[in-house]
């Protein structure tokens, strides 16, 4: 019954989405408020029904109802409850259901909190949302129904892919989807603006918080996925330039550009056409990501499905939406008036540079991902594009971007004083140079690029701090005044500083990990000691344990430094009986921001085991950076200027605003 109810709820949601696709648009044509308001109720009802459908699938998984094919193929009665729930989206059908659930959630949010939107804009936005939703409901119902029954229900399930049986699956896909799908809102706003032929600064003001929400989730989702790969896959890599990783990175790059260009549009009413285009591109890249992952065009650890009908269906959706929106853009963009003027050297100019660099970086990733595919089909030339290519092309672009980052927030709108900004950034520049010198001396020659990159990271962080110091006048006025000013600073200023500093932090982490990572690969017997980066790691012994749905072999290592015992590390290898596959559970010991990382290889017949021990200096900065960036995003989101549907601003207290 549950499965059928879930299926039926999904069909009803499709019906509602179809109504929502058409009726509000007719209402907008006829200026009929009642018809336009239909969008609101259908969006909320859709959320209800898709939610019910999703809950139904969760219940089926929790109850281990193996008469449902999806549950049989991805679950096991002995699986811990957490993984029974997360297993819902650890497969193609379930993850698509999560995708549309989140889409419905965003639609519902616009419906519920979009009261201050002009009626016709809201009607258009929700109608476009419904087009996307209808396409994907159809996709699920036609090609990937998660509620299909099996005629003769088996007694036990086939279990979930062991690599996915991890807390990471609980967090990574939902976060990522909140990001991907969140960009559908800015897409819908862009299409609505094109259809209405009307766009102004207020539009940017409505779009920015939604983009920011999506961006925050995508940032955290990518970082989370990277950390998951780092500890789960067992060789300490955290970014592989895998096509599917690229698929998530591209919307992030475009979305970051969009955030910045929407800022220009909101403040200065400029870059309108470009912002619209970026909104379209960002979501198109999200769709492309979905296509790449779901179609099996590109093989990857993330690809669940390799069913050609699904690929063709998604390709159709992709062409329809990307082609349709770009044609609409081409037809209507010229009618949008260009707004405020600015000199090349200005805050706007800096943001345009940011957009240029981010878009080129995005294009590099897009090309790198699709080029081999195109060459194979068009020229019958098989080639690969991997990490070494991106290191050579992507990294310089980002270095340029980072070099420019501290200047952006300090330049004035319209016409900036580059020399003045350089003077104010002198301290930050000196900090960067000192960092280069220290890193150079400490590494005593060695890698030449690494100290420079560290200096760049320090410059970015110091630049972010300088911006806040300048705005509060910390160096010029009494501390109490500065503190008062700091409290009066708009949250978005703090958000900018945190997000930009996060970039620097991540860069330092990346450079330190890749340059000064030390590793020790050896076959170890009991009581053998490995020496790495000043630590003594002794293998105390091997033993085995029975888990709920696996057996594991655990190696116990005693870690000490200068004869002083620090900790015990227990990496393990789990072997899952149902699937006959195994996972490596690395052991991590965190010391400050650095980590000691041990993973196990194969055991020999004589009781020795292959061990890989890594010391990864400052590796955690790689993920602290994105967390800082997301935190900056949250701060910026809480800025009252951006609060959606915020009550009347308190005008009684005159807030101190810095001159911008």
């Amino acid at each position, binding site marked *: 019954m549950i499965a059928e109810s879930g299926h039926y709820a999904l069909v009803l949601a499709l019906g509602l989405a179809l109504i929502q696709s058409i009726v509000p648009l007719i209402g907008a044509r006829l200026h009929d408020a009642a018809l336009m308001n239909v969008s609101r109720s259908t969006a909320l009802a859709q959320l209800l029904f898709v939610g019910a459908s999703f809950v139904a699938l969760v219940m089926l998984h929790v109850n281990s109802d193996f008469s449902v094919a999806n549950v049989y193929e991805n679950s096991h009665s002995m699986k811990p409850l957490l993984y029974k729930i997360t297993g819902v989206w650890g497969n193609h059908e379930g993850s698509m259901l999560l995708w549309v659930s989140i889409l419905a959630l965003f639609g519902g949010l616009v419906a519920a909190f979009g009261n201050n939107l002009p009626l016709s804009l809201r009607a258009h936005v929700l109608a476009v949302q419904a087009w996307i939703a209808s396409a994907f409901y159809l996709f699920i119902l036609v090609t990937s129904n998660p509620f299909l029954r099996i005629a003769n229900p088996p007694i036990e399930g086939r279990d979930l892919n062991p690599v996915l049986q991890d807390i990471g699956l609980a967090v990574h896909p939902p976060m990522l989807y909140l990001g991907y799908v969140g960009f559908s809102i800015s897409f819908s706003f862009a299409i609505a603006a094109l259809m209405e032929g009307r766009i102004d*600064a207020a539009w940017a003001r409505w779009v920015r918080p939604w983009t920011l929400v999506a961006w925050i989730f995508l940032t955290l989702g990518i970082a989370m996925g990277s950390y998951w790969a780092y500890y789960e896959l067992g060789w300490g890599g955290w970014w592989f330039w895998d096509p599917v990783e690229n698929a998530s990175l591209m919307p992030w790059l475009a979305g970051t550009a969009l955030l910045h260009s929407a800022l220009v549009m909101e403040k200065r009413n400029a870059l309108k056409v470009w912002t619209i285009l970026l909104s379209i591109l960002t979501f198109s890249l999200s769709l492309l990501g979905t296509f790449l992952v779901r179609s099996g065009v590109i093989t990857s650890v993330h690809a669940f499905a390799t069913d050609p009908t699904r690929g063709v269906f998604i390709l159709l959706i992709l062409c329809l939406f990307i082609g349709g929106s770009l044609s609409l853009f081409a037809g209507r963009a010229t009618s949008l008036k260009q707004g405020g003027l600015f*000199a090349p050297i200005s805050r706007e100019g800096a943001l345009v540079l940011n957009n240029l660099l981010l878009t080129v970086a995005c294009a590099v990733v897009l090309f790198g991902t699709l080029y081999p595919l195109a060459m194979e089909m068009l020229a019958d030339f*098989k080639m690969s594009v991997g990490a070494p*290519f991106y290191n050579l092309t992507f990294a310089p672009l980002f270095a340029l971007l980072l070099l420019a980052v501290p200047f952006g927030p300090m330049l004035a709108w319209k016409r900036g004083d580059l020399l003045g900004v350089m003077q104010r950034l002198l301290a930050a520049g000196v900090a960067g140079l000192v960092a280069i010198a220290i890193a150079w001396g400490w590494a005593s020659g060695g890698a030449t690029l690494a100290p420079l990159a560290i200096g760049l990271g320090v410059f970015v962080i110091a630049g972010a701090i300088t911006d806040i110091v300048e705005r509060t006048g910390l160096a010029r006025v009494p501390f109490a005044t500065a503190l008062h000013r700091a409290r009066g600073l708009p949250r978005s200023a703090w958000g900018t500083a945190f997000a930009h500093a996060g970039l620097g932090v991540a860069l330092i982490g990346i450079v330190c990990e890749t340059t000064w990572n030390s590793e020790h690969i050896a*076959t170890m017997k009991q009581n053998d000691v490995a020496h790495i980066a000043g630590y003594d790691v002794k293998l105390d012994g091997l033993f085995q344990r029975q888990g709920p749905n696996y057996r594991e072999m655990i190696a116990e290592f005693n870690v000490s430094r200068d004869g002083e015992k620090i900790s015990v590390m227990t990496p393990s290898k789990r072997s899952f009986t149902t699937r006959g596959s195994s996972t490596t559970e690395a052991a991590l010991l965190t010391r400050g921001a650095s980590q000691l990382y041990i993973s196990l290889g194969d055991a*020999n017949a004589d009781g020795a085991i292959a061990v890989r021990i890594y010391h990864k200096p400052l590796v955690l900065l790689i993920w602290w950076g994105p967390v800082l960036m997301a935190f900056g995003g949250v701060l910026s989101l809480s800025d009252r200027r951006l609060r959606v549907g915020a009550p009347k601003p308190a005008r009684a207290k005159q807030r101190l605003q810095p001159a911008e």
Partner: protein
Amino acid sequence: MRRMMAAFALLMLLALPAAHAVQPDEIMSDPAKEARARELSRELRCMVCQNQSIDDSDAPLARDLRLLVRERISAGDSNSQVLDFLVARYGEFVLLKPRFERQTLLLWLLAPLLLIGGGLALWLQIRRRAKTGADTPAPPLTAEEEARLAALMSDDAKSS
């Protein structure tokens, strides 16, 4: 205890056919040559894997390739000779960093071309607009917005 461990280890060996990326027995005695081998391994694709370098991959083929790379290095090949050897055997597909040639021209030149082209176009546009254009006025308010503005303004008048 030792015997139990040995028996268990054997069991694990049977249960887990998967090898691990670079294994202890592969490592060359000369650290300089080993470093070169690792460096090369990171640029070579494990052809049966999903976009992994042979340095990262667990697959048996990756192990064979790693050993082959080390063999060539011990035989005195330079880095580029090793790569040439592998390309001759397996085709360009094996290189994670595509060579700069006719088929990959666009791929390699994309970033600089876009950057220069885009930058130039933007610069020209900004300059042209700065010379000719004046700030365009904001579009007129719709009737609905006028009404809302009036309501807001009257609110303002009351509260202050």
